């Protein structure tokens, strides 16, 4: 199946700093999403971005599908940005019993200090 690798695994920032999280995937994808998991375990949808660039406030994301990677940018970080950021994909070749299956990366643990 498709492999998803995220980097860095851990990131520690001071409030106000900017950061870039990376997601590499091993095959072409139909779907790519970025999630933020808060300390209570809830997954918050950040971006649905199988290709192109999107922005939402201080967050933006870019997916270069032909080169099989996606980037999540966080600007002017705040303590509330702390948590785990996951990238998840559905491979284009997924079919049959794997239809619609999201494969998750291992996540980036972000800690923002005041």
């Amino acid at each position, binding site marked *: 199946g498709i492999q998803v690798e995220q980097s860095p695994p851990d990131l520690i920032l001071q409030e106000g700093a900017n950061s870039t999280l990376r997601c590499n995937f091993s095959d072409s994808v139909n779907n790519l999403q970025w999630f933020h998991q808060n300390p209570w375990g809830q997954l918050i949808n950040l971006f649905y971005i199988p290709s192109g660039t999107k922005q939402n406030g201080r967050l933006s994301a870019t997916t270069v599908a032909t080169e099989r990677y996606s980037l999540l940018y966080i600007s002017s970080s705040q303590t509330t940005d702390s948590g785990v950021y996951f990238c998840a994909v559905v491979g284009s070749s997924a079919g049959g019993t794997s*239809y619609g299956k999201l494969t998750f990366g291992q996540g980036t643990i972000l800690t923002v200090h005041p």
Partner: protein
Amino acid sequence: SAVISQKPSRDICQRGTSLTIQCQVDSQVTMMFWYRQQPGQSLTLIATANQGSEATYESGFVIDKFPISRPNLTFSTLTVSNMSPEDSSIYLCSVRFGDTEAFFGQGTRLTVV
């Protein structure tokens, strides 16, 4: 988008018992998914629940341990059977509308003692 209500939000259970987790969606959806997140780990798909047919389980997960019901297009349950401490995890249900964005419930944090 979708509003997904998952119950219970957390529970502490004795080993050997079973827990049923409910997932209710505010609109009809063909496919629902159940994921497990073990402590400090990423999410792993347990099974895909299709209305009107048997659930499709991923490698390493079996129906006897994780029976799933899907009685209609807005509701599903996952049961964790004969629990052991290794089953302590967050369990999440998810939906997708066609080949688009996935949405998740708030999760059920299970601790087995």
